[in-house]
């Protein structure tokens, strides 16, 4: 096993860590958009959850209380979106954007008022974060070539939210395709009239979908501030909500392809970090700025050229107003 293999394994390991919030946010977006509500506010919900999770964990010392706070915050924001867009037929893009902007300002402001650290939350100690869980024998097997490497680096040694994201994908797929709720969810995003005439409440379905969206975004945001990092900093989502939305479109609003898209973006990001400052054969050293742009260039290229026609849920973006 050469050095190249080790680097490859480490890159995959990093990919999983970067992909986790993307996967959770993209699944969150899937529930919202499948119900017919555009959710450009994934970013804001994650950021809001990241702040309250970090603040709560900093005060109580418990990452689990932080997680609860993050989820509650994100679900509340999601309900504001639902109230504006479902109950009052507001424009979904405007509402989502408004949430993003409000949260981007609100987090640092409250942080400054409460913690006096320039809008950040205090650094979280080891016990108030979600930390790596080592699987049995991971240490012992680490030296076994190939299998041991993969086991100890890729499977073992992540925090609980990474595993939660891995499980969330098949669960989401099951809910979407194999349950009554999923059938109605898919129907309400395609043809709300059909759902209404079948005697199912369109608004009720959309509210429930947006609650799930809030929940998943809450977990994703909590991951950012209490697992991936150790505290909240201003704008720490850094466009991940939008990237998740791109992955959702790239994955054609389906759980598994969406997850693969997230992994691809995350892999590009992991490679990007690794490539910085590395001298490549023939090309030489690539400027850092160019490498950092790589995941985004990839996004644009994929969306422009390789996705094919992404057919959105038909009723997406349209408030349902009962006629006749």
């Amino acid at each position, binding site marked *: 096993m050469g050095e190249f293999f080790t680097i490859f394994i480490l890159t995959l390991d990093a990919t999983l860590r970067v992909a986790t919030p993307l996967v959770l946010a993209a699944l969150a977006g899937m529930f919202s958009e499948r119900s017919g509500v555009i959710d450009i506010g994934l970013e804001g919900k994650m950021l809001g959850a990241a702040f309250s999770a970090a603040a709560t964990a900093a005060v109580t010392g418990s990452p689990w209380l932080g997680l609860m706070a993050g989820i509650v915050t994100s679900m509340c924001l999601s309900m504001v979106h639902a109230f504006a867009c479902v109950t009052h037929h507001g424009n979904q893009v405007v509402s989502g954007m408004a949430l993003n902007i409000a949260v981007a300002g609100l987090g640092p402001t409250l942080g400054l008022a409460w913690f006096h650290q320039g809008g950040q939350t205090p650094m979280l100690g080891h016990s108030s974060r979600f930390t790596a869980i080592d699987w049995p024998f991971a240490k012992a097997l680490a030296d076994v070539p190939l299998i041991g490497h993969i086991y100890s680096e890729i499977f073992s040694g992540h925090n609980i939210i990474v595993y939660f994201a891995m499980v969330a994908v098949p669960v989401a797929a099951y809910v979407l395709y*194999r*349950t*009554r*709720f*999923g*059938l*109605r969810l*898919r*129907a309400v995003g*395609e*043809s709300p*009239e*059909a*759902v*209404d*005439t*079948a*005697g*199912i409440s369109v608004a009720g379905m959309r509210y429930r979908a947006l609650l799930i969206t809030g929940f998943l975004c809450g977990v994703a945001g909590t991951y950012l501030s209490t697992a991936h990092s150790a505290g909240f900093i201003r704008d720490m989502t850094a466009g991940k909500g939008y990237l998740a939305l791109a992955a959702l479109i790239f994955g054609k609003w389906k759980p598994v392809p969406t997850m693969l898209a997230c992994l691809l973006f995350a892999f590009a990001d992991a490679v990007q970090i690794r490539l910085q400052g590395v001298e490549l054969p023939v090309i030489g050293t690539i400027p850092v700025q160019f490498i950092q742009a790589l995941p985004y260039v990839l996004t644009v290229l994929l969306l422009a050229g390789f996705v094919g026609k992404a057919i959105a849920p*038909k009723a997406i973006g349209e408030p349902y107003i*009962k006629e*006749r």
Partner: protein
Amino acid sequence: MTQAQSGPAAAGNLPPALALHGINKRFSTVHANKDVSLSVAKGTIHGIIGENGAGKSTLMSIVYGYYQADSGTIEVDGERVSIKEPQDALGVGIGMVHQHFMLVNTFTVLENVVLGVEGGMTLGTGMDAARKELEHLEKEYSLEVDPDAIIGDLPVGLQQRVEILKALYRGAETLVLDEPTGVLTPQEVDHLFRILHALRDQGKTIILITHKLREIMALTDNVTVMRQGEVVANVKTADTSREQLAELMVGRSVLLRVEKTPAQPTDVCLAVKGLNVIDGNGVRRVKDVDFDVRYGEIVGIAGVSGNGQSELLEALSGIRPVDTGDILFKGENLAAMDGHLSRWVREHGMGHVPEDRQHMGLVLDFHAFEDTILGYHHDPLYNRHGLLNYNAITGQCADWMQGYDVRPAVPEQKAGDFSGGNQQKIVLAREMERDPELLLVGQPTRGVDIGAIEFIHKRLIAMRDAGKAILLVSVELDEIMSLADRILVMFDGMIVGEMPQGEATEQQLGLLMAGESTNVQQGAS
């Protein structure tokens, strides 16, 4: 006005499947249903006929629970029921087949049928049971549909069957069909009628809402006529006639056939030679078409929708590029010109009433008066140095609305808020009041009610008698046969027959339209 009462047809002493007593419904100023009472006997097909806006759809929306009546009662099988939402209607065995299908296009037939009655939190077992039940229903009523087909891939006739299956699967004993034939081909209509007869023979009750007299006569046992929110007659279909029903609907006697003198054609106005048109997908939609239209005649193009008529009209009006061939209009070859051709032809005396008024004829979100200058907005009458003269435009629009009996005659009302017939009158006024020498008319009476049809037909005849040339494209054979002086039949992009009005029979035209051309072909020019 006759006020005959319909007795229960074949049902003996059973209580009526549906009885309405004194239903009233108001929407702000409009009294949509005035004291409506009617009774539908079990095991019959009951028609409800009336013009657009007569209140039939409102009435059925009340029955299906979309609206609450202001007063009045509903009885099902002799028992008074309260229907507050669609769920309640389904509960008492009333199922609705909507005019616009309530289906999820990306779902399979089976998924659409079970939506809302899945039979459990997960789909597995419920779906299997549903599949069996569906097979049973399909057999019983000859409603064959592949349960695993995706709705979007099915033709409209089959989609409609799925709607019927949906209602039956939910245990409907009474089926309400709202304008069910509007989107169907003649063959699909025949099949639907057979299905409805089969359903009736199995004891189901069917309520058919329509404004088409032909369907009432062909299908129903009893008919209720509505006008301006009121029931004006309940009659047995066998005891009435098309003419009588038309009179009841409109409130005055109506000419179902237009009266006109023989045409006096003079010089050629439009000559089409060897015209070929290729659409955006590279398909040749118009193939080597030759014909001409003279001043003082109406040339009708008959054909089943989608055989190149739309593309032909668009090419003639300068909207769609010509591949090869000539279009000679007033000494100019339109096929050889480029630039803003549709503007040029309008400025040179060609009016165009497009087939699809809602997409091509009007901007539905505009005020009516704004729509009356579409395409003519460059005219200095309305437009001085790029500023619109609103007084001139609204004044003219008000005059036209008077002249064309547009209701309500409010130039500021949004075009989309007028009924279909009144929208069409707005388009016709715009295109005819400019006094064009040639008028291209596509589907002038599609979705237009019977009183307005008569008005539109009279206007077209008057224009012809004033010496103008008219090219009429319509899928309504009745319309072509009563209006056109010369009839061309289009099939698969070609003109497959031509005959003068007097010689054409419905059967002959029907065969040509179906592509069975033989010895009738005469070659146009």
